């Protein structure tokens, strides 16, 4: 632990700390361009020069390249270092264009900051500035190479950190160019981070282009709602328009990174098709009256037919508060109402089973930061970059730090170059995991088993979509056996699973049983008289269940997305999306994290610009700004049905939750913007759920799975996201493709439910498997692992 003096302040830092970090510890922010704590030091920009006095000698050195040593007296304030920073600024400005007024980086540009800090304002050279052609890099990122200061951060992030191969550096001298070999969309799922990586404005957010200055943005801490990782974000809005999303640092979750789905998937918020107004079949437009009418109708039905004639359904994108408010509705006259916290029966069963596995394994939670810290990491039953992209990025860091990563999955399209991939039929994942536990198997399986047993810090991450019941059980058993073998020597065993949606863990922890399948069956049978559906999607329901909705005497829908539910409802209450509300999500590792309101709902001032002018009339409230938080609406309904006292506030509803279910008590301490609180899955006594085994009979079996861009329910409503995602493609093994002559457009028929889509052979996919993106719309959703017939599409055959 060397002790150094930094700018006159004594500070002790861990051995091996470089002087930039040591300066941070002493309260001096050493200016840097090329240095980044996650990318390391390369010493290219030379701006972090400091003067070091050591053993009576003074020298100038780059802070990022110098490790703190006992007895160093470091300063950034002497004339030499000041002058060096001035020079570096002047050199960098030799070629930097004079376009700050139109640059979106302005206001958060490190070069701008340093130029002002070093008081460089007069150009002393008559050199002309070099220019570059820019490239089209897709719908998310704008390229402006003239602004480049050659810090190599983009290349180091894209190639070294994120493993991208389609972007790099060419040229030499003062003409170094960062780009793709040919213009075209970035292939990496993490390209959005270049915006933050670039210290100046070479890579800027295309969705945010020319929208605002960053200092004008209204920003609140929030949580990304696009998968179960729960990345911390800072959405920014101005003039009531949500304009951009940036990563918020949380070392336990996402570090400083985001995936493209999270960063650019926010289009659904400002979607013109979004239902923004209260809609009652009787024409009521006043909220208070509407709540009264709806509550009255609900109460009437409950009194006439009993509480069990009411179905209450929400989903994994609803906050913990909403889930609880829905439960709280089922009391008084509505006692006995049937509740499900999921919109998809299969995912409900698998989430409940996952939580139960986590609760009983006795292992430590496997958080994002733990993924990177494992020395042996086994990922099973998921294409990780598609299901939880940032978990895949963390797994890559595990491999980069020397950890061994094994993937047991039918598809792995991101970690292949750093991990040992064991291509496995989804139905065979269980067998492989058992082989890992028992130390049998051969080749890579044996190696993985051996590595796990000898690991100091083993980790096991199980997926959601491509993992069946037996595989989950086998995974949990493997975790338990690791705990037994490693626990005695004090080595931590970490075990995690993926959940659907941003609050899958919360929804599972709130659930008493896997109820949705029964509810939908009864809905089809016409047993319900009323239903309250909150922020759910009916896409996973059977057509008959969807049809039955129309026959319900009372359908109450609360949502912020358009769709069949919103269209059919007699009482539609618009709700506030994540960025518009306050609440808590529980991420896949049980970390409860709060989010706070960024914008108020309603039409943006910008959308209302006509004829070069803002709206010329004055009004107090935004147009179409009626949405409320779902839990508030539910609580207001509860007041009118159950007759309980006043509507509660956020703290009130959390207190009530803690009182009703003590396991949730830690939530009262969660604040939006803090690092979150980890909940213990065992405290919830999760319901047991059985998920069936995937069949592996003859012929092809269809498996639905996520894709990084385009399959997730919220982000796929965003226009640029749709463009970048392209049309969905079914993946088959090269063997099957050759055998059945597949390729181009095919028709998939799963027991009478047929779809037509592109098909491609993908190396590594095992024979007998057809992987279909989740966003493909089937007439009747096939079960995972259902037998499917694949034929070349008619149009193709005719040609």
């Amino acid at each position: 632990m060397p002790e150094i003096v930094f700018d006159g302040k004594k500070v002790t830092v861990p051995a091996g700390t470089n002087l930039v970090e040591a300066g941070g510890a002493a309260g001096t922010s050493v200016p840097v361009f090329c240095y980044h704590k996650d990318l390391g030091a390369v010493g290219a920009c030379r701006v972090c020069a400091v003067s070091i006095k050591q053993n009576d000698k003074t020298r100038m050195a780059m802070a990022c390249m110098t490790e703190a040593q006992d007895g160093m007296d470091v300063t950034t304030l002497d004339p030499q270092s000041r002058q060096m920073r001035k020079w570096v600024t002047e050199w960098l400005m030799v070629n930097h264009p004079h376009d700050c007024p139109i640059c979106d980086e302005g206001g958060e540009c490190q070069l701008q900051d340093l130029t002002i800090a070093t008081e460089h304002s007069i150009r002393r050279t008559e050199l002309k500035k070099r220019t570059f052609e820019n490239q089209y890099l897709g719908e998310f990122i704008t390229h402006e190479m003239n602004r480049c200061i050659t810090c190599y951060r983009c290349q180091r992030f894209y190639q070294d950190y994120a493993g991208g191969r389609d972007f790099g550096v060419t040229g030499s001298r003062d003409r170094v160019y960062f780009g793709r070999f040919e213009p075209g969309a970035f292939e990496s799922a993490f390209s959005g981070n270049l915006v933050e990586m670039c210290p100046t404005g070479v890579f800027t957010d295309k969705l945010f282009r020319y929208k605002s200055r960053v200092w004008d943005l209204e920003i609140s801490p929030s949580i990304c709602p696009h998968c179960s990782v729960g990345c911390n974000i800072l959405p920014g809005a101005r003039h009531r328009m949500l304009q951009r999303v940036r990563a918020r640092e949380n070392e336990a979750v996402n570090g400083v990174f985001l995936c493209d789905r999270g960063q650019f998937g926010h289009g659904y918020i400002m979607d013109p098709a979004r239902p923004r107004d209260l809609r009652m079949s009787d024409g009521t437009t006043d909220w208070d009256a509407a709540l009264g009418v709806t509550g009255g109708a609900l109460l009437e039905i409950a009194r006439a037919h009993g509480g069990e004639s009411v179905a209450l359904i929400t989903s994994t994108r609803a906050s913990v508060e909403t889930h609880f408010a829905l439960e709280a509705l089922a009391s008084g006259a509505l006692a006995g109402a049937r509740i499900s916290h999921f919109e998809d029966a299969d995912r409900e069963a698998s989430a409940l089973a996952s939580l139960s596995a986590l609760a009983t394994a006795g292992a430590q939670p496997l958080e994002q930061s733990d993924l990177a810290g494992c020395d042996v990491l086994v990922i099973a039953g998921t294409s990780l970059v598609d299901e939880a992209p940032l978990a895949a990025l963390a797994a890559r860091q595990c491999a980069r730090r020397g950890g061994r990563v094994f993937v047991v999955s039918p598809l792995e399209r991101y970690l292949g170059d750093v991990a040992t991939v064991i291509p496995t039929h989804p139905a065979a994942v269980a067998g492989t995991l058992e082989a890992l536990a028992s130390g049998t198997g051969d080749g890579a399986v044996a190696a993985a088993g051996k590595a796990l047993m000898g690991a100091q810090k083993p980790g096991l991450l199980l997926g959601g979509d491509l993992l069946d019941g037996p595989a989950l059980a086998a995974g949990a058993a493997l975790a338990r056996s690791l705990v037994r073998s490693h626990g005695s020597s004090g080595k931590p065993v970490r075990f995690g699973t993926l959940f659907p949606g941003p609050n899958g863990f919360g929804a599972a922890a709130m659930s008493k049983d896997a109820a949705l399948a029964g509810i939908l069956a009864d809905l089809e049978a016409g047993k319900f008289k009323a239903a309250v559906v909150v922020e759910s999607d009916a896409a996973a329901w059977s057509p008959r269940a969807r049809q039955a909705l129309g026959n319900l005497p009372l359908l109450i829908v609360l949502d912020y997305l358009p769709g069949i539910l919103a269209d059919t409802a007699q009482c539609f209450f618009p709700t506030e999306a994540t960025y518009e509300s306050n609440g808590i999500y529980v991420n896949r590792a049980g970390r409860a994290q709060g989010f706070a309101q960024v914008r108020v709902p309603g039409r943006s001032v910008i959308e209302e610009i006509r004829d070069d002018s803002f709206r010329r009339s004055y009004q107090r409230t935004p147009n179409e700004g009626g949405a409320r938080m779902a839990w508030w609406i539910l609580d207001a309904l509860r007041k009118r049905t159950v007759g309980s006292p006043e509507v509660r506030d956020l703290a009130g509803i959390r207190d009530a939750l803690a009182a009703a279910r003590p396991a949730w008590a830690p939530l009262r301490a969660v604040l939006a913007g803090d690092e979150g609180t980890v909940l213990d899955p065992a405290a919830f006594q999760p319901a047991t759920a059985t998920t069936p085994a995937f069949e592996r009979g003859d012929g092809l079996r269809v498996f639905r799975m996520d894709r990084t861009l385009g399959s997730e329910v919220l982000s796929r409503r965003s226009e640029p996201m749709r463009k970048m995602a392209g049309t969905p493609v079914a993946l088959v093994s090269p063997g099957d493709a050759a055998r059945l002559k597949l390729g181009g457009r095919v028709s998939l028929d799963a027991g009478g439910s047929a779809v037509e889509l592109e098909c491609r052979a993908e190396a590594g996919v095992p024979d007998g498997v057809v992987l279909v993106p989740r966003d493909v719309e089937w007439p009747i959703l096939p079960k995972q692992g259902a037998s499917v017939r694949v034929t070349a599409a008619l149009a193709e055959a005719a040609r």
Partner: protein
Amino acid sequence: MTEVLLRARAGTDGRPASIDAYRAVGGYAGLARALKDLKSDELIEIVKQSGLRGRGGAGFPSGMKWSFVPRGEKWDGGPKYLLCNADEMEPGTFKDRVLFEQNPHALIEGMVLAAYGMEMTEGFVFVRREYFRQTDDFEKALIEARQAGMLGQNILGSRFSFDIHVHRSGGRYICGEETALINAFEGKRANPRSKPPFPATKGLWGRPTTVHNVETLACVPGIAANGAEWFKNLAATPEGAGTKLYGGSGALEAPKCIERPIGTTLRALIDEMGGVRGGKQLLAVIPGGASTPFIPADQIDVPMDYAALEKIGSRLGTGTFIVFSEDDCPVHGTLNMQRFFARESCGFCTPCRDGLPYGVEILERFEQGRATMADIDLLDQLYAFIGPNSFCALAGGAAEPIKGLIRHFRPLLEEHVTSKGCPFARSREAVHA
């Protein structure tokens, strides 16, 4: 006159000395002796005592460099590489080429000896792009050596095996920088690497590596054959060791490359090359390639050796000097060199990438008559910050001639300002051409 490195020379057909010609003058005797009588430790000790210093420009003691490579107990048994840096691109420098095209077997023998000393497993010669014919000839020499059992498996019947491969450079100045050379060799961008880790522990493909200049390696056979004392005594001065290939270019009557005892005075060398062209007055000399500071005419009695030149504020560099006569403008010459350095920057660090063009622009102002007196100090200050603060030695080398220019030719710079342009007619024409 002792010629050691060039004791065998190309024949009248222009082809380099054959292995027989080389052996006829005692070639490969050192190798035979070392393989028979010396352990690798002993060879390193002899090289250390011989006082051999790197001939590529930096002048680092070679024996010391050899001793950094993990050997014996410390060696993990994996591959270790010897790289010969024949990427001779320093402006004004052409000594390695002469050695290469006259006496390639001296290099081969030197490499095998160095490899034996450092227990290397594989050798590579990284050759400048433009040396097409020389490289072809060198490859032929390698075949000769292999056939003679001097290369390959069990050299001269010993248990030592070693082979040499030739790599033609992509052709940029920066590839001559030790670590950039390694990167270029690996097929990466020729950006220098940060040190530590030094190549001796983590170099080519992450393995222990030593990079040597051609001439340095060619010195080794003599040392191995005749011992450290002999080598030390070759020098003209007591503190020097060995001979040196001195090249002269610029305003000389007979510019050429000759081998002389190290420490021969600059005046003697200029005289041997026929003196200043056209009987003109000598103005200045750049002693060792473009990255060394000017020596004014009144200091040319300096012995051309490391210490002596450092004493007068210059450096030996590659030992190939450039002569300026009274007709040649040092400012213009410096501008020319700075253009070279700015052009050849790899673009990795800011001072080199953006600072060098900045310097070029200031020098252009002097030459084109737009400079002010303040620009002299600006120039001085600019290079004072570029030199020590850049990533590798390229920009540091570029700062050297500027240092000499300002120290010795400040009045000339002032004259450029007052006379609004270059006072040398020839340079003026060049500027406006």
